[in-house]
């Protein structure tokens, strides 16, 4: 049967990428309309299949299913002449997607999947740093030198001729300045030059695409003026690893129901009558998901570190911290009064050397043995994309008897064949680590954080951590998002009376998912752990959709990594890391990169980071890949990087180079190589 789509395929010539604005209203209407009608018809067809057996479900039907919530497919797009709104390959009538393409891209091609798993036949990759040519370093230093000179000169003359601009930096009226001109120099003279690349206000969902509020500045970024118009851009910047930032779909439906039932707040701290049954069930679920005995959750990821680390260590204890650990960990350690030592980023030799030194020397001056040593590392480092060398650390742990705290803020959900983070990726039992911490802000599209560990530990933290007594509890909508997204990653175990056959009859299970559910999965969620009112969509409940997401993320991450390498860029990080930093070095190129990407015919928003978040020379662009991206989106990013990188002279990597077309064509091969 010919697909209705085929009769009226949207004009997918590359030309529309070029002239977004001139894309005629009329043609966009027909395209949108035809897409919608196609979707609608396919839905109708699918509904009639709904009760039939699995054999009639087409093999290619995406694991997202075709049932009740298919109204969701209807695009409620407000901004329509933007090619980001339609899939590159129009769906066939058999493929019905339950997600909105702008939030979560439609990608039916099973070849664009990959499994994130450590290959033990190869050594754990060291943090390799590729050096740029000398002249790049030189020009980078010179750039900073020039910026500093100009900055100081402007300050010098400014203070004499335009005093009014400097009053808040000078003592006046008997008050010392809030911020001296010296302390704020970097912010005023370097960062402000590229303020248009930071803190860009947005609206809508931070999904596959994001809508930015256009703004401009007439006074060198002192103030930004909003034009009132909006632009939809491809979003390769949000921590939306599994694509759960969605306004439509099973999770959003569950959140909606929970707001109706619970309101938006639990009105208090956890220990002072702000605890709800939702907290209890979510904590049990998190423990199950992580594979630990117990877990607690807190309403902010930052505060999870900053308020619970002090309950773990104190005076007489030592914290050994990776030098690139997140600010929240540093704050937590400072609150704790413990001593801190740092080791070189992800360098296990440096860690061991330090361990030998501190254990043999004991506490400073007194040489008393340390009460305890806590090593704090991150699973996946947010600026470098490096993965912790967990197998080695666990080995060291056995020998040196320290306690291990792993912050899985970025890795949970995003790594491992089952999305259970670094332990899953390396296939190391979670319980061989003492404390596993993570946040819900990233892969789960929610907010807040958790700590998982043995029950004794968690109970002690519940009572002795600062959050329990003083900080507001997590709110019901957030809890629901956590529970629904997490359950969908785990899959709900079939309840005892329902047999395997009911699973097979489920319309959502395609062939792929059937094979998977036969596999022994660690910790599926028992139905009793879900709130009784939560009716998840079958594709979410059986975990098939989330498995697809995990594989798409792994594919996209590897593809972007390898693609950029083949195009000649210098990148950091682990090939499976969804965080892909692309080194630009020169401070001037950083803002240019961001602006050029944003002003393309299909705008792309990127994150640029520089000193002080990174070392002075290694300014970078940081891509955050999501499962919501389709292969074509990554193509688009690569193509944009190729063009912009060519203009800005960023291709300094060593190794074999491919052309952009070849990279796009041989994507699957690229991903599975190495």
């Amino acid at each position, binding site marked *: 049967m010919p697909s209705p789509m085929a009769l009226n395929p949207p004009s997918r010539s590359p030309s529309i990428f070029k002239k977004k604005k001139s894309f005629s209203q009329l043609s966009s209407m027909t395209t949108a309309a035809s897409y919608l009608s196609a979707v609608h018809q396919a839905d109708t067809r699918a509904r009639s299949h709904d009760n039939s057996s699995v054999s009639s479900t087409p093999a290619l039907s995406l694991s997202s299913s075709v049932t009740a919530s298919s109204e969701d497919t209807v695009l409620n797009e407000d901004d329509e002449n933007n090619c980001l709104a339609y899939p590159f390959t129009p769906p066939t009538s058999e493929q019905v997607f339950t997600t909105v393409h702008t939030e979560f891209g439609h990608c039916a091609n099973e070849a664009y999947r990959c499994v994130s798993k450590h290959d033990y036949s190869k050594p754990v990759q060291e943090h390799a740093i590729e050096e740029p040519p000398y002249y790049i370093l*030189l020009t980078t*230093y010179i750039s900073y030198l020039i910026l500093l000179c100009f900055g100081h000169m402007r300050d010098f003359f400014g203070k004499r001729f335009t005093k009014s601009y400097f009053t808040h930096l000078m003592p006046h009226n008997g008050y010392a300045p*809030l911020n001296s001109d010296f302390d704020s120099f970097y912010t005023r003279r370097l960062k402000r030059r590229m303020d248009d690349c*930071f803190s*860009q*206000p*947005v609206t*809508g*969902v*931070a*999904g596959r695409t*994001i809508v930015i509020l256009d703004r401009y500045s007439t006074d060198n970024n002192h103030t930004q003026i909003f034009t009132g118009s909006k632009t939809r851009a491809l979003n390769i*910047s949000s921590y939306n690893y599994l694509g*759960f*930032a*969605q*306004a439509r779909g099973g999770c959003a439906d569950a959140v909606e129901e929970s707001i109706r039932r619970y309101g*938006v*707040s639990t*009105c*208090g*701290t956890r*220990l*002072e*009558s*702000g*605890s*709800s*049954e939702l907290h209890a069930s979510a904590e049990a679920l998190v423990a199950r998901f992580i594979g630990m005995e117990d877990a607690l959750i807190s309403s902010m990821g*930052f*505060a999870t570190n*900053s*308020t619970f680390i002090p309950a773990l260590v104190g005076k007489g204890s030592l914290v050994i911290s990776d*030098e690139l650990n*997140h600010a929240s960990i540093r*704050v937590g350690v400072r609150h704790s009064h413990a001593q801190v030592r740092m080791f070189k980023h992800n360098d296990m030799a440096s860690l061991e050397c330090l361990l*030998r030194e501190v254990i*043999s020397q004991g506490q400073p*001056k007194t*040489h008393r043995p340390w*009460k*305890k040593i*806590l090593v704090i590392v991150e699973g996946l480092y947010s600026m470098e994309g490096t993965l912790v060398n967990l197998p080695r650390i666990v080995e060291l742990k056995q020998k040196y*008897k320290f*306690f291990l705290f792993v912050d899985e803020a970025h890795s949970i959900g995003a790594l491992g064949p089952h999305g259970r983070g670094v332990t899953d990726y390396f296939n190391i039992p979670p319980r061989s680590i003492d404390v596993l911490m993570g946040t*819900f*802000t990233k892969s789960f599209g929610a*907010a807040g954080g958790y700590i998982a560990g043995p029950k*004794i*530990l968690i*109970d*002690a933290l519940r009572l*002795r951590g600062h959050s329990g007594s003083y*900080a*507001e509890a997590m709110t*019901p*909508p*957030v809890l629901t998002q956590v529970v629904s997204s997490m359950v969908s990653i785990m899959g709900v175990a079939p309840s005892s009376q329902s047999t395997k056959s009911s699973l097979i009859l489920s319309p959502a299970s395609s062939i792929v998912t059937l094979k998977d559910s036969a596999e022994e999965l660690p910790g599926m969620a028992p139905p009793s752990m879900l709130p009784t009112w939560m009716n998840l969509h079958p594709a979410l409940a059986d975990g098939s959709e989330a498995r697809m997401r995990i594989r798409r993320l792994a594919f996209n991450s590897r593809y972007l990594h390898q693609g950029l390498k083949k195009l000649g860029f210098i990148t950091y990080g682990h090939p499976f890391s969804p965080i892909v930093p692309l080194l630009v070095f020169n401070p001037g190129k950083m803002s240019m990169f961001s602006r050029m990407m944003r002003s393309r015919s299909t705008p792309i*928003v990127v994150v640029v980071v520089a000193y002080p978040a990174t070392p*002075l020379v290694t300014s970078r662009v940081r891509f955050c890949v999501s499962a919501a991206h389709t292969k074509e989106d990554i193509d688009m990013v690569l193509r944009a990087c190729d063009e912009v990188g060519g203009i800005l002279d960023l291709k300094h990597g060593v190794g074999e180079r491919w052309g952009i077309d070849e990279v796009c064509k041989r994507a699957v091969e690229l991903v599975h190589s190495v």
Partner: protein
Amino acid sequence: MDSSTSVALEPLLSFLAFSLSQIESGFYRIPGSAVVARYVKSSHQNDPGRTILELILVIFAIRTLLQSRTRTDRSGKHFIRFSEKEIDELVDEWVPEPLVQPLSEWEQKDLNSVPVIAGPNGPKPKLLATGKIVTNLASFNFAGLAGNEKVKERALETLQKYGLGSCGPPGFYGTIDVHLDLERDIAEFLGTEASILYSQGFSTISSVIPAFCKRGDIIVADRSVNFAIQKGILISRSTVRWFDHNDLKSLEDTLISVEKDRKKRKGPLTRRFIITEGIFERDGEMVDLPKLVELKLKYKYRLIMDESISFGTMGRTGRGLTELYNVPASQIDMLVGSVANGLCSAGGFCAGSAIVVDHQRINGTSFVFSASMPALLATSGSEAITLLRNNPSVLLNLQDNIRAIRAVLEKTEGITLLGHRASPIIHFCLRTQQQSLSVTQSTYDHEAEERILQDIVDDSVANGVLLTRAKHLRGQEMIESRPTIRIAASAALTRKEVEKAAGVVKASVTRILSKRR
């Protein structure tokens, strides 16, 4: 003219040449220096650019070495050299303490007694443990916004447009228009230039303080400030002077003595801050704002005031103490409040001048390094402000209820009510000879009092009124608080219900205390 200058320069130039040759010969006297010199010369010949580069690299290397925070103490005088074998032995011998001490029997009981609510929280929640409906005198629902249909509707609308998570810190595409809206709403509501939104109430002030107060700055703070402020002060590394709890005379004395100190030492002008709370979380005392502002202006201090309890509860429409005392909010340099407590949503804010707010956008650690709050919580906050603005009667009800509760409890034997008469949180502790909160440890038995209070809480829960002790981290607070039970009044209950509930509390107190005797 020309020749005269060159004449004048002559001695200078010859001196320069002389000292250069001196330095050179000195350099060659250092062993190995010839090698270095030869290397530099030849490399300079080959590639002059390289010399500059290397020079810069050397400078940077030295700089980073000097700055390095991970300095090893190897060279320190306390360093003991061990052979590898000895180290191995020491490693083998070392026995660390367990990561945490297990809970004591009392702590376990404390944890087990935490109430868990089934279904929505509000004026009359259902307890999970017993399935009973109780009257809520424990949760922060001052203006009765919990479960408000308008708020829910607004949250649902937002959900449909924005989804839940923001998936990014504010700097990196996590600033959503609804955050800017709420920031503007708060600033307009209070009458300040701007405000900034943090994603958790507790982490707000502990991040605001170190954003402004640095090493060498002076903080003058109330001795009984809440835990979040204590943590913020600790992390700021500033010099702290404490004044007696809610005693503005003591504050003035401290300010004078600080000024004297500075005059004596002739130190430079440093930033000076007064940090206090509007209504104190620990006992419900209220600060005399006009007097405080007068002092701060007189002595030229900046004022950081935590209105986490008073924002959304005090004043005609809940603008807080500034509305109550009719003091312009712009007089308070950093006004910190809680969206979670006062507006029944989540998060916190700091309002102030545009400079103060912008400074935090770069320097507020928990603002910069944490994801922004979910959009629907921000719009719930905005909606709550609209509701407060439009329904001043709500806060009149709240005051009525506060009076009703206090009236009943004041007449109760064996307890002492603390705090200001108008405070929406009402603490009471067991009555002893000394009534001050900061009595020394020896005059009362902390744990015994906690147990008695917990019995009162349990008894009144069994009789249908939800209460809670004010939970504190023992041993971590700067000064130990007297154990108290903290009642949170709510406008969502009628006067009748409140009186009845207070009666139940009174009965529980009497029952438990008479049993003890």
